[in-house]
C-alpha cells in the first residue's frame, strides 16, 4: 500500500495557513494583493553563479528561489508542501519515491518541464564530473526512472526521509536541460528555470534584475512586475538606503542594527526569533572537557538571559538544544537553568581547582567577540580562569574542523530536516562532527530515524536524541538568535522561514 503523503500535507498546509492567518490577521495584511510594481531588495551579495547546480553561496539562494521552482517547498515549521511535484508516494520500505509532476509547466526558454527534465537534473548533479556540492545530499539516489511524461521514480539505496527536505532546497531546483546544453559553462550567467520570475540581467557587483513570468503556472502569480537585488556594502548602508526609499527590503539585521529605523513610521520590522543556533563546543573526548561534571558546571554557569539581553536586546530565544522551537521536531525539554552555586559545586566534584586556566577561542567577529566576553565573565565568576585566544574569523571553522582549537563558540543555521544538523554534528561519523562526540545509542537512534517516513514516529526518536545530548553535552546550547528584516510600509506578504533565506515570490506592494 502506498501512502499519499502529498495530499495529506496539502490539507495540513491549508489548516496551518488558516491558523496562522487568524493569528496575524491585522487590517493591512488581510488586504488583497495588488499587482505590479518593482521590489528592490538590498543584499550583501556574495553571488558567484545563478546556476542552482553549482551554487554554494548564501545570497544566491534568494535569487534562485525566484527564477527556479523546487520540486517541493517548505513552511515556517519546515513541513514539506507540493510545488513542481503535486504529490508523492513513498513505498513501504521507503526505497522508492514516486513524484507526480505538475502538468503543462514550461521552462522560461519554452521547453517542457517533464519527467525527462527531472531525470536530467538529478543525473547531472550526481555526475562526479559536474562537481556539484549537492551530490552528497542526493548520494542516496541509486537511479532515476521516468515512468511517464509526468511521473518519475527515485530508486534509493536505502530509505532516507531527509531527501524530501533537500528537494525543497537547491538540490530540488529544476533547471532547463536545453539551456544547460546551450550555454555550457556560462549557464551561471544565464539561469533558465520554471519560476515566477524570469532572469533579465546581472551586472556583477551591482545588481540582478528578474521580471514577472507572464506564463507562470500558478494562476494570478506573481504579483510584482520586477524584483531587483541591489548590492549593499553592509547593513548600515542598507538601512540608509531603506530610509531614503531607494530600496524596499533589507534582511540579515541584528537587533542592534535596527535602532536606526525602529521609530520610523515608514518602515516596518519583521523579526524571526528562531534563527541561528549559538553554542559552545569542545573536544568531548579529550581533557579537560572529557570530564562530564566540568561540562555540566559550564552549562549551569552561563546566564543565557544576560547574553540574550546584551547581544539581542532580549529578542532571541533561549536554547535547550540544537533544534529551535517552532519546528516539527523541536523537543519540549527545559534548558539548563542559570545556577552558579550548583556550577561551583559541580566544579568541586569534578576536581577542578579554582583558578584553573581554560582557553576559549575568540574569532574576529563583532558578535562572537562580545559573546565570548560574556561567557568569560560568567565562567570566571564560578572560579575558572578563561583566557580568550584570538583567531581569524575566516579560518576558525576550518581550525575547529581540523581539531586544532578546542573550546570554541559556534553558530549553525537551522536545516529543513532534523537529520540535517543532528546527523552531521552528533553522529560519530557525522561530516561536521568536530567535537569527537561518539555515543552508540545516539548513532543507533539517528540511523533508525533516517529510515522512518512517519514524522510523529521520527520525532519520538529525535526526542530521545535531544535528551541524551542534553546529558552528554557535546555542545552547550545558548540561544537561537533574533534577526530582522526591515521593509517599506507598503511591502506585503513576507514570511520568515527558519533557514533565514528571504522568499520574495509571494510578496506585493501597496502602491
Amino acid at each position, binding site marked *: 500500500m502506498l501512502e499519499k503523503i502529498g495530499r495529506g500535507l496539502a490539507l495540513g498546509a491549508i489548516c496551518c495557513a488558516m491558523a496562522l492567518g487568524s493569528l496575524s490577521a491585522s487590517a493591512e495584511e488581510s488586504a488583497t494583493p495588488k499587482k505590479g510594481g518593482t521590489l528592490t531588495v538590498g543584499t550583501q551579495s*556574495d553571488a558567484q553563479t545563478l*546556476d542552482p547546480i553549482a551554487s554554494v553561496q548564501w545570497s544566491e539562494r534568494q535569487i534562485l528561489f525566484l527564477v527556479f521552482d523546487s520540486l517541493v517547498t517548505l513552511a515556517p515549521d519546515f513541513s514539506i508542501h507540493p510545488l513542481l511535484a503535486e504529490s508523492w508516494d513513498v513505498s513501504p520500505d521507503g526505497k522508492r519515491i514516486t513524484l507526480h509532476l505538475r502538468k503543462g509547466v514550461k521552462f522560461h526558454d519554452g521547453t517542457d518541464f517533464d519527467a525527462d527534465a527531472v531525470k536530467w537534473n538529478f543525473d547531472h548533479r550526481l555526475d*562526479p564530473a559536474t562537481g556539484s556540492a549537492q551530490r552528497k545530499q542526493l548520494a542516496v539516489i541509486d537511479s532515476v526512472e521516468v515512468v511517464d511524461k509526468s511521473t518519475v521514480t527515485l530508486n534509493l539505496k536505502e530509505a532516507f526521509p531527509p531527501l524530501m527536505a533537500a528537494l525543497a532546497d537547491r538540490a530540488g531546483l529544476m533547471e532547463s536541460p536545453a539551456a544547460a546544453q546551450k550555454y555550457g559553462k556560462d549557464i*551561471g550567467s544565464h539561469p533558465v528555470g520554471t519560476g515566477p520570475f524570469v532572469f533579465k540581467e546581472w*551586472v*556583477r*557587483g551591482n545588481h540582478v534584475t528578474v521580471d514577472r513570468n507572464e506564463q507562470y503556472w500558478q494562476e494570478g502569480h506573481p504579483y510584482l512586475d520586477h524584483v531587483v537585488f541591489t548590492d549593499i556594502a553592509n547593513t548600515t*548602508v542598507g538601512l540608509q538606503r531603506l530610509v*531614503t526609499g531607494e530600496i524596499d527590503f533589507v534582511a540579515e539585521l541584528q537587533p542592534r542594527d535596527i535602532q536606526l529605523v525602529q521609530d520610523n513610521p515608514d518602515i516596518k520590522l519583521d523579526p524571526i526569533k528562531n534563527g541561528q543556533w549559538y553554542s559552545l563546543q569542545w573536544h568531548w573526548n579529550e581533557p579537560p572537557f572529557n570530564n562530564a561534571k566540568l561540562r555540566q558546571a559550564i552549562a549551569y554557569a552561563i546566564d543565557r538571559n544576560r547574553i540574550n539581553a546584551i547581544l539581542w536586546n532580549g529578542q532571541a530565544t533561549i536554547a535547550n538544544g540544537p533544534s529551535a522551537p517552532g519546528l516539527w521536531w523541536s523537543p519540549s525539554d527545559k534548558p539548563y537553568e542559570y545556577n552558579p552555586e550548583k556550577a561551583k559545586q559541580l566544579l568541586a566534584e569534578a576536581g577542578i581547582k579554582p583558578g584553573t586556566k581554560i582557553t576559549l577561542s575568540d574569532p574576529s567577529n563583532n558578535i562572537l567577540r562580545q559573546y565570548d566576553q560574556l561567557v568569560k565573565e560568567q565562567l570566571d565568576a564560578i572560579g575558572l580562569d578563561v583566557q580568550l585566544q584570538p583567531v581569524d574569523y575566516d579560518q576558525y571553522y576550518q581550525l575547529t574542523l581540523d581539531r586544532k582549537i578546542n573550546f570554541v563558540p559556534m553558530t549553525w543555521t537551522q536545516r529543513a530536516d532534523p537529520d540535517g544538523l543532528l546527523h552531521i554534528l552528533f553522529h560519530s561519523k557525522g561530516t561536521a562532527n568536530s567535537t569527537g562526540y561518539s555515543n552508540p545509542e545516539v548513532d543507533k537512534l539517528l540511523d533508525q530515524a533516517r529510515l522512518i517516513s512517519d514524522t510523529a514516529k521520527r520525532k519520538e526518536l529525535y526526542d530521545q536524541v535531544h535528551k541524551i545530548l542534553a546529558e552528554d553535552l557535546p555542545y552547550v546550547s545558548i540561544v537561537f538568535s533574533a534577526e530582522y528584516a526591515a521593509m517599506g510600509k507598503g511591502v506585503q506578504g513576507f514570511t520568515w522561514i527558519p533557514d533565514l533565506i528571504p522568499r520574495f515570490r509571494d510578496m506585493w506592494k501597496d502602491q
Partner: protein
Amino acid sequence: MLSHITRRILLMIPNVIAMTFLLFATVSSFLGSPAAAMLGQEASLEEIAALNKQYGFDRPIIVQYLDWIAHALRGDFGRSYTSQQSVADALLPTIPVTLELSLWAILLAVVATVLFNSVPFARRVVQPITTTLAVIGITIPNFMLGICLIFIFAVKLRWLPTTGWVPWSAGVGAHLSHIILPVVTLAANYFGSFTLVYREEYKAAYRRLFIKVARAKGLSETRVSLVHALPNAILPVVTYVGLSLGPLVGGAVVTEMVFSMPGVGRLFVGAIGAHDFPVMLAIGILVIFGVMVANLVSDIVYTSINRQVSLG
C-alpha cells in the same frame, strides 16, 4: 628617452613574474585550497580531496604556478572557479569602472589642491578650511568617510543617491550623480597629502628671486602665482601622483565596496573570499602592470615639465 622606455617595459616582465609568484604562494598558503570554499561549509574531507585532485590543487605550489603561468603566457587565464565565467568575461567589464573612478579622483584631488592653494583669494580666505579638509582627508579612513558622506548628502539632504552605479548609457546625469560621492571619498586622502606636499613647495618657490622679479615687473598677484609659482611647485605633486597609484588601487577597493560599484576592487575582494585564484592572479597582474605603467608615465610627464631632468 626611447631606449629608457623600452628598458622600463622589459623590466616589467621579471617584476610581473616575481610579484605573481609571491601572490600565488602567499595566497595559496594562507587561504588554502579553493576546494573547501567551492563545496561549502559541510563538505566532507573525501569530497574536498576529490575536488583537489580534479583541479590539481594537490600538486606542489611551484608546479601549480608554472602550470598557470604557462597558460597565462599563451593568453589563457582560465575560468573562475566559482562563477565558471572566463577570466576575461569577469574582469573586462570591471576595468572601466575602476579606471573612471580613479581618474576622476586623482583629477579632483590635483585640481582642488592647486586651486585652493594657489589662487591668492582662495589662499587668504579658505586657508583654515583647506587645512582642516586636508587633515580630515588624511586621517579618516575611506570607508568611514564614505558612510558619513552617504549619511549627510544622501540620507539627510537627499541631494544624491546613496550608493550604486549607473552606466553612461542610462543617462549622463544619473551616471554622474552616482559617481560624485565615491570620487570625493577616494579623492579626499589624496587631496590631503597633495596639499601638504604642494603647499611647502609653493612657499619655497615663492621665496625665490624670480617671483620678486615678476612682481617688480608689475604683474598681478594672480598671474605671479599661477604662471610663475605654480609650475615650479607642481613637480613634486606629479611624482607623488605616480607613487600614489599603488595605494589608490587599495583605496578604490574600499570605495567600491562601500558604494557597491562593480569595479575591479569589488571583484578582487569577492575572489579572495572565494579563494578564486584565476581571477585574483589576473587582477594582480593587471594592477602590477597598471602601477608600473603609471609610474613610467609620471616620469615622462616629469621630464617634459622640468627640462633639467632627463630620462637616461
